[in-house]
């Protein structure tokens, strides 16, 4: 679903040049949740904005849903973003004047889908997130965890298949953060390719793969191990 090859990003030039990314490769399939970990300044947010075609790489190739971003017109790229890519931010970024269902319907309406049809799709998504009785509440009336669920709904509504999240549970306590990660994982299992960037190991541990970014380079990644039951052999047993 997402394929990034040899991505480099350089800001500035000469003595002020900053190499934010150096030949980074990243592929994410539908159904898979990938986490990118790294300290501040390691380039992880830059990588995410390039993955979502919000920023262009200095060199390298980005393919979303089999389409090469570089060869597209601005209009085509904007359409691809609207139809294929969803974003989840640390601080939710919901519009305060719209209800939960209206926030979720917004990307569909921006894409030209008639309001009634957009609302029907949004309500379906809101239901699937367990927020049926919150559909007509405004963001101010929702808890932080509920707001982030709405934001995830807005990111995937309309069958979008690439979900990009920047510290999605950073503003939540650990139990609400866990619910958000559980939802992201379930969403990906339903056929979405997910990328989460974070410096938080507990959040990253929800992913199928964790990639480590350091000084703009991908230096390492986790390999899947056996199940966890053996780890608990000496302690709690069901």
């Amino acid at each position, binding site marked *: 679903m997402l394929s990034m090859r040899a991505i480099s990003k350089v800001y500035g030039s000469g003595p002020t040049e900053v190499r934010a990314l150096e030949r980074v490769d990243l592929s994410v399939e539908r159904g898979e949740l990938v986490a990118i*970990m790294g300290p501040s300044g390691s380039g992880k947010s830059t990588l995410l904005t390039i993955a979502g075609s919000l920023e262009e790489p200095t060199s390298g190739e980005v393919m979303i849903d089999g389409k090469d971003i570089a060869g597209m017109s601005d209009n085509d790229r904007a359409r691809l973003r609207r139809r294929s890519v969803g974003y989840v931010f640390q601080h939710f970024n919901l519009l305060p004047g719209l209800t939960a269902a209206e926030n979720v319907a917004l990307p569909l309406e921006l894409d030209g889908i008639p309001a009634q049809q957009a609302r029907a799709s949004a309500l379906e998504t809101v239901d699937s997130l367990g927020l049926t009785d919150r559909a007509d509440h405004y963001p101010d009336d929702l808890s932080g965890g509920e707001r982030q669920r709405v934001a995830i709904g807005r990111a995937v509504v309309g069958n979008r298949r690439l979900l990009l999240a920047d510290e999605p549970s950073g503003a939540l306590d650990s139990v609400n953060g866990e619910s958000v990660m*559980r939802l992201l994982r379930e969403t990906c299992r339903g056929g979405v390719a997910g990328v989460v960037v974070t*410096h938080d*190991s507990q959040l990253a*541990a929800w992913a199928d793969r964790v990639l480590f970014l350091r000084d703009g380079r991908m230096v390492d*990644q*986790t390999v899947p191990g056996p199940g966890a*039951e053996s*780890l608990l052999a000496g302690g709690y047993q069901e």
Partner: protein
Amino acid sequence: MSIRHALLALLSEEPKFGLKLQQEFEDRTGEVWPLNVGQVYSTLQRLERDGLVASDESHGPQKDFSITQDGFDELVSWLRTPLPSDIPPRDELVIKVLVAVQVPGVNVRDIIQAHRRHLIETMQRFTHLKADSNQSDLGLALVLDAELFRLEGVVRWLDAADTRLGQNPGPKDGKAATAPQPESKVTS
């Protein structure tokens, strides 16, 4: 703490005789781990028997010990090896990082990354168990939380160590690497 590996680390800097090794060991561990010279010599004998150090008597009355390639490989392998249980005591990890800072030719940030990856793989296993389990199983959730918070603490210490080392690479900078250089075991 492994005296064997501590002595190999001290010898990775340059050849030394037994009494000097004892003094340096005590100096560098803040004299928290007293070590008698008898222990030093018995350990050196075993290391020599195993081919990990070599001795030289040609420079005077005291035997000079130096690390061999096998000894250096053993040291690097120990530095990188995840601790035997999946739930490592933090102190041993601290010792590995402290030792790695001193060993010439070893990239301590790569050592840190090897342990970080291992810890996060363990956290993934716990988290995936949580993801696949019944959310109403409160006991399991509490046990998994406890493990995850503990492991997260260790990862955060590694992150802080990594940042500090990025700012201040440590004592081995500028020191000539007299030991054999590590081979493929250390990734770039």
